[in-house]
C-alpha cells in the first residue's frame, strides 16, 4: 500500500470534547464572544504542572485520537511513529506572558523554552515516547493540508508506520491582537486541538489549489468557528462521524485555498 488510511481522529474545541459537542451554528452559539475558549485538560503528572495550556490541549488531543483508533500509547511509542505539528497562533499566549513579564529575571528559565512553538509537540513526544520524524509547521489550514500530504509521503516511502498530524490553536491570551486584524480571521475564534492518526492504506493524497471551500470543511467551520490550523482535522473528524468521505477537505490561509487531491 502506498497511500494512507485514517486510523482515528481526536478533537477538542471550545465547545467540548468530540464532534458531538459542536453546536449547529457557532456564530449564533458564541453570541457576542469573539473567542470561545477551550477548557484546560486536567492531566496527571508532575511534569504537567509547568506545561502551558496549549501543551495540555495537544497531549489530550493525541490521547483522544488514540482512543478513537482503539490503540494504546504503547503502540505509538518509539521511532516508527512520526509527529507533524501545525499551528498558526498557539505560541502567542506563552510568548505574550514572557514579553509582559518585563525585566530580566522576572521571567525565568522555566518559562522561556515554552515560548517556542515546538514546546507543544515536545510535551507530546515526551508523554507518548515518540522518537520518529518530528517537525513543526507554522501556518493555518492550508499548511495542515501540507502536513497531511507529507504524512502520506512518509508512509509511502516507509520512513514510519504511522503519523500523528496534530494542530493546536489558542486565542484567549492574544484576543486583542487578533481583533486588530480581521482580514485574516473569521469570528468566532474557537480554540481547538485536533489530532489525526494516519496509517498506510489505499488513499493516495496530495495538495492542490482549490477554487472553493469543500462542503465538509464549510459545515465543520459553520459548526465550530474559525480554528485556523485545526480546521482540516475537524473536517476529517466530521466526515468520519457522519459517514461522509473524510478526505474532501480544503484549507484557507493568507488568501489561498487548497484542497487534498488524489496523488
Amino acid at each position, binding site marked *: 500500500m502506498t497511500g494512507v488510511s485514517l486510523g482515528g481522529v481526536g478533537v477538542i474545541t471550545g465547545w467540548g470534547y468530540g464532534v458531538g459537542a459542536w453546536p449547529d451554528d457557532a456564530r449564533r452559539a458564541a453570541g457576542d464572544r469573539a473567542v470561545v475558549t477551550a477548557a484546560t485538560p486536567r492531566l496527571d503528572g508532575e511534569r504537567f504542572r509547568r506545561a502551558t495550556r496549549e501543551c495540555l490541549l495537544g497531549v489530550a488531543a493525541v490521547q483522544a485520537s488514540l482512543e478513537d483508533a482503539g490503540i494504546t500509547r504503547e503502540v505509538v511509542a518509539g*521511532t516508527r511513529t512520526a509527529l507533524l505539528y501545525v499551528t*498558526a*497562533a498557539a*505560541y*502567542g499566549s506563552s*510568548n*505574550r506572558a*514572557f*514579553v*509582559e513579564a518585563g*525585566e*530580566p*529575571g522576572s*521571567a*525565568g*528559565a522555566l*518559562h*522561556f*523554552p*515554552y*515560548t*517556542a*512553538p*515546538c*514546546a507543544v*509537540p*515536545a510535551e507530546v*513526544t*515526551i508523554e*507518548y515516547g*515518540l*522518537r*520518529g*520524524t*518530528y*517537525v*513543526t*509547521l*507554522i*501556518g493555518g489550514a492550508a*499548511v495542515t493540508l*501540507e502536513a497531511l*500530504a*507529507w504524512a502520506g*509521503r512518509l508512509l*509511502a*516511502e*516507509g*520512513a514510519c508506520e504511522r503519523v500523528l498530524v496534530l494542530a493546536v490553536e489558542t486565542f484567549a491570551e492574544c484576543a*486583542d*491582537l*487578533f481583533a*486588530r*486584524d480581521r*482580514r*485574516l480571521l473569521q469570528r468566532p475564534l474557537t480554540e481547538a486541538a485536533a489530532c489525526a492518526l494516519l496509517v498506510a492504506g489505499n488513499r493516495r493524497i*496530495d*495538495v492542490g489549489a482549490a477554487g472553493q471551500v469543500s462542503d465538509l470543511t464549510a459545515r465543520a467551520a459553520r459548526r465550530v468557528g474559525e480554528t485556523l490550523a485545526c480546521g482540516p482535522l475537524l473536517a476529517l473528524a466530521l466526515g468520519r462521524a457522519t459517514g461522509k468521505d473524510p478526505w474532501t477537505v480544503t484549507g484557507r490561509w*493568507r488568501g489561498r485555498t487548497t484542497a487534498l487531491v488524489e*496523488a
Partner: protein
Amino acid sequence: MPGVFRLRPEPVAIVAAGVVTPIGSDLDAFWTGLLTGANGISTIERFPVSDLRVQRGGEIKKLTSSDEGGRRDRASGLLCAAADDLRARSSLAADRARIGVVVGTALGGVESLEDAITDERSLRTAAAAFYDSPAHALASHLDVHGPVLTVSTACASGASALGLAADLLRAGRADLIVAGGYDGLCRFVMRGFDALRSLTRERIRPFDRRRNGLLLGEGAALVLMARDRDVTGPRLGRLLGHASTSDATHVAAPDPTGRGLEHAVELALGQAGLDAGAVEFVSAHGTGTPLNDRIETAVLRRVLGRRANGVPVNSIKGGLGHTMGAAATLEAIMCLLATRHGAIPHTLGFENGDADCDLDYVPLRPRVTRPRVSLSTSLGFGGCNAALILEGMVA
C-alpha cells in the same frame, strides 16, 4: 528498522546560495570570513541590553537589502537580504506559480509580536506577529506564488526546511524552491537565553576544554533547490538525505544519551543510501556549551565507529554566534563550499579538547582537503534533532 527506507528518494540539487551573516553580507564574504577566522561578535547596539548579564552577540550592523522605505521588520529584512544575494548568483527560471518558499526559524515574527503587544495602535505589527509572516514577505519580495511554508524545529529549523523542500520537489509540488533559515537577534531571545544562563561572558569555544556557553547571532541563509534531473547547468551540490527526529526526553535540554540525534543521522544516511563510511566531513552543531558538545562527540563516535578520529569535524559558531534558525542552512552551505574550494574552515575558538571532546575538530587553521560527502548535524529546543547528508561538487 532505523535508517531503512522502502524507497530511496531521488537526490535534490542545490543550485546556488545566498547569505547575510555577522561575518559577511554575502556568500563570498561569508566564505572568506570563515577561512580567515573573522569574528562577528560585538556589543549589541540595535536594542537595549544594558540590563542583561551578557550584552554581546553576532549582530549584523548594516543590512544592505533594499528595505522598502524601512517598512520591513528585522526578520523579513534578513531574509530579503539573503534572497538578493541568491538572486545575484542564480535566476529563478521557472513559472512563478511553480516556485516555492520553505524557511526555518526559531523565532519567526516574534519581534513584531513584541511590538504589537507593547504598541496597541499598530495594525501592521499585529498582522506581522504571526510566526510565518517573514516567509510570506520573502515570497512577495521574490514575486513567487508556489507553496510558502515555515518550519520551526527551534535551532534545527534550517536543516528541517531543506529536508521539507526536497520532499516537496520530489512530490512535484514545485519546480524550484528557495529554502533556508533565518532569525534576527532581538531583546526577546536575549532575555530568554540570559534567563537560561546559557550565554558565555567569554569567547565561544566549541569543543574546547574551556567551553562554557554560547553567544547568539543573527542571519539568513537561502539555497535554490531543484530536482537533480531538471538541472542542466552548474550546481553547488546535492542533498542526498535528511531527517528530523525527536528526543522525547525534555522540553529544553538535549537527551544526554544523544539517541535522538543518532537516529536522525541513521535515517538521513538510509535515505541517501549510504553508510557512515561514506562521510568524509562533519559540520557539527557545536554550540560551545558543555553538554551539547559532549553529546555530539559521543554520537559521532558511535556513528563513525573506528573512523571517528580520522574524520574532520568543525563548528562555525565561534565566529558567527549561534544564528538559531539560520545556523543549519549556513552550515550546509559551508559543507558545499568546502568541496567547491577544497578547504574546511577551522573551528574558531577551539584549541584543546578534553576527555569528552576528543575528535579532530580542525583547530587553528583551515584544512586543505576536498570532502565529497558531508554530514551536518543540528539540535534544538523541544528535543529537535536534524541531520543532512550533502554531496559537494567542484563545478
